């Protein structure tokens, strides 16, 4: 039996939720970043899966979106990590529980 679209979606959902778990539960800023990257990857996987299982010939929209998403994720990771380093220098901690200056 070949894997169906449903299976891919379930895998993607699982990956997303693991990412969410990391982002919500861990206190270290880097874990939050990792979690976000995972969620993005899960979205990318969805796009590719939908493209692959769409009636052919399909335009490569899914593929293109994923490529762009990866590029943006890279940018986001770079800025995020830069922030982590800056914050670390400033507060000497990367534990987000102790950073609550984002008060609104």
């Amino acid at each position: 039996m070949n894997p169906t679209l449903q299976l891919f979606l379930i895998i993607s959902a699982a990956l997303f939720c693991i990412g969410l778990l990391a982002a919500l539960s861990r206190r270290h800023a880097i874990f939050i970043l990792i979690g976000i990257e995972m969620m993005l990857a899960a979205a990318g996987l969805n796009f590719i899966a939908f493209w692959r299982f769409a009636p052919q010939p399909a335009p490569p929209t899914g593929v293109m979106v994923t490529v762009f998403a990866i590029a943006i994720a890279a940018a986001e990771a770079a800025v995020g990590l830069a922030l982590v380093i800056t914050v670390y220098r400033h507060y000497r901690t990367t534990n987000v529980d102790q950073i609550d200056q984002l008060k609104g």
Partner: protein
Amino acid sequence: MNSVAFVVIAILTLAAALAAASLQKLIHAALCFAAAFVGVAAFYFLLGAEFVGLVQVFVYVGAVAVLIVFTILLTRRDAERERGFHWSGALIALAIFAGLLWAIVRTSGLSVAAPWIAPLTVRQIGEALMTDYVWPLQCLGLVLTAALIGALVLVMEEKG
């Protein structure tokens, strides 16, 4: 599409991701993160999007993971071992997973097999990038440049 390959990749990817999310030591988590992303890239290969898979490996495993490791090393005094864990986050994540699973399972018409597909060549992608997607591409270039400069400014500011 090979179902055996699928199962193997799925197990590896999810296990690596779970490890990345729950391991105590940061550096281990970062390595698992890289592994998970290799798994995702493998999925892309499996789905016939070889180019995306390659990009995934290059960008994530080659760049982002390395960046993360560097960051961990730079902030290691504090980052060695991370104590806190919010269990409620796990609860919410689990609830959402249940919800998504329910939604996926009860949506009809998803149990389709993959149709045959003409291989997507890099040339095709390149042409699309330069024609239909030229504006997004330019914008993305701008975003990347801005992010690069921004990251540099953020990191350098302290020294000045």
